[in-house]
């Protein structure tokens, strides 16, 4: 019940968005079965939202520890490039997936070591990989767009299982798995403890260093999955454009999900709703025939509104305003009583 109340604002926002779009485009919610697969705009949102959704899962964990991972977009480019490269080198599907996931783990390990062992602020530590990582990705693809034709790999981008697009299935399963792991074990609480106060949680016996590294590795793994989806989708690896700007979308999804950038309490479900809200706005704008340029301005407005709502200062202002109004009312009532007598 409390979990439901936690995500109510996000659910309402999403419902309002969907209602607004359906008002103008009645076909929005229609889902047809064509050739044994579900087809419709909502399915498209679920499918296109896969990279943001996957990144948002990892980003939620990182932000819960009061960190941030700017390198996820670049990690997508690296892992996508490695996946495409190993397919063209003939390592097979298993080899390609394993190598790509391994690269994601390596990227996460690098970030985690810099943050947890060397004590560099997360923004800066992950900035290093963000700037240099695209160079590494280009090194793998040798500066070209590395294309491949492999049906097994393409499945992760355009395939479907029981009528549901594979990317949608992938991010839903990943999110459910991570959420269960966090909430069925003490892991989620320990991560929150590290986010609230690393020193205190370390003194209380939480192995904060290992947890921090693990969180960045998880984020790297999620980025690797997103990279595989992106590469499989276009059947090629584009080192320059794969995952470009996606780290910002992922952070935005987490923030829309009501997770504080100051760490602590987190909700993966809320982050995923945030990712869906972003993707729905993207699709809605395209449907409405607005040029996609409006996208960025609308996103900026959205961030601003959320910032105002989340602001610690403003809640204090509200509180003092209400108190002042209350006091004035009391005085007014008191003076009325006096004049009445």
């Amino acid at each position, binding site marked *: 019940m409390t979990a439901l109340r936690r995500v109510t604002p996000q659910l309402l926002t999403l419902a309002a968005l969907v209602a607004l779009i359906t008002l103008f485009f009645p076909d929005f919610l229609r889902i047809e079965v064509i050739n044994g697969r579900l087809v419709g705009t909502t399915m498209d949102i679920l499918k296109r939202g896969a990279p943001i959704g996957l990144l948002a899962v990892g980003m939620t964990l990182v932000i819960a520890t009061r960190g941030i991972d700017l390198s996820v977009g670049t990690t997508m480019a690296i892992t996508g490039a490695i996946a495409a490269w190993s397919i063209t080198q003939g390592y097979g599907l298993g080899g390609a997936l394993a190598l790509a996931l391994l690269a994601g783990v390596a990227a996460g390990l690098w970030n985690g070591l810099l943050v947890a062992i060397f004590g560099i*602020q997360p*923004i800066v530590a992950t900035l*290093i990989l963000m700037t240099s990582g*695209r160079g590494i990705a280009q090194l793998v693809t040798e500066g070209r767009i590395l294309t491949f034709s492999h049906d097994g790999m393409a499945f992760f981008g355009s395939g479907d299982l029981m009528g549901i697009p594979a990317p949608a299935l992938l991010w839903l399963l990943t999110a459910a798995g991570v959420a269960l792991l966090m909430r069925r074990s003490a892991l989620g609480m320990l991560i929150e403890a590290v986010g609230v106060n690393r020193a205190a949680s370390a003194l209380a016996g939480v192995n904060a260093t290992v947890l921090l590294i693990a969180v960045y590795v998880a984020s790297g793994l999620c980025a690797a999955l997103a990279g595989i989806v992106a590469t499989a989708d276009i059947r090629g690896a584009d080192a320059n454009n794969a995952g470009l700007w996606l780290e910002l979308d992922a952070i935005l999804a987490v923030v829309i999900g009501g997770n504080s950038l100051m760490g602590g309490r987190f909700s993966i479900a809320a982050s995923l709703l945030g990712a869906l809200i972003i993707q729905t706005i993207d699709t809605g704008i395209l449907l409405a025939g607005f040029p996609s*340029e409006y996208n*960025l301005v609308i996103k*900026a407005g959205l961030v601003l509104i959320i*910032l*105002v709502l989340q602001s610690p200062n403003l809640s204090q202002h509200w509180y003092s305003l209400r108190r002042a109004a209350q006091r004035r009312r009391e005085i007014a009532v008191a003076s009325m009583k006096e004049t009445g007598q």
Partner: protein
Amino acid sequence: MNPRLFPLAATIGIFLLACLICVIQFPYMLSTRVVGNLLTDNAYLGIVAVGMTVVILSGGIDLSVGSVIAFSGVFIAVMLRDTGLHPIIVFALLLVVSTSFGAVMGWLIHALAMPPFIVTLAGMFLARGAAYMLTIDSVPINHVFYDLLDDAYLLMPGKGRLTLIGVVMLLTVAVGMIVTHRTRFGASVFALGGGEAAARLMGVKVGRTTVLIYAFSGLMAGLSGIVFSVYTSSGYPLATVGTELNAIAAVVIGGTLLTGGAGFVFGTLIGVLTMGLIQTYIVFDGSLSSWWTKIIIGLLLLAFILLQKGLLRLTVSKAGA
């Protein structure tokens, strides 16, 4: 020697070493032509990095500058195309817009008590979106005044050209040095970077300073946009993606502490030139691909951050002993 000078000394040392390596391998690099091009090609980055230095000195970060540069270019190009205004008036308008844009972000950061990171992220979206809304195409600038600006250069001995935009960059760095190291505002910035609570107790007007810091960064981004539009003679909304990261990298390589409170504007100039030098070396070499630039800059960034960490630990242990 003052340990605060170590990062700056390291920056200058690495730059000189890089110069030496370049010259030994390619003796022709030691010409005024290369120097002139180095200044011209990195003029916009140098200017925006000065603004970024001030922001980082105060312990903040400004992710919006790359988008603001792109917006500036598009704004200028569209204004010149659609109105009969003289470029100088358009420049003035643009600087007012970009400065107030920065000021509003600074005000939001202070008033909402939100991390600068996320507020300037919104600013980044907004500026880029505004640029897209003006046009999605690359708009060429054809104006007599622009030809004049383009052709304005001083011929140095050895036929190197010291262009107008290169000079503007050097002047900006000089102004930035005076503003940060010699004025009351600069002292407030350093105090804020040392710690907001302490700064407030020292009598720094935190709100006013925060607004001014981001307004200054906006002004620099606008100026950088003007220089960039002169450099490319066009406005393109997709230009300068990721410039904010290059600017941050230049500031860090220049020896400014990312946590704020310590650093030098002059170091930033050296940081920009070091990054430019790496690019020039790759061009001279011819066989290396351009993506090595990114990897080497990443490694330099790492080296400097670790150096800063080490120095910090050194000073802390010294203070403890």
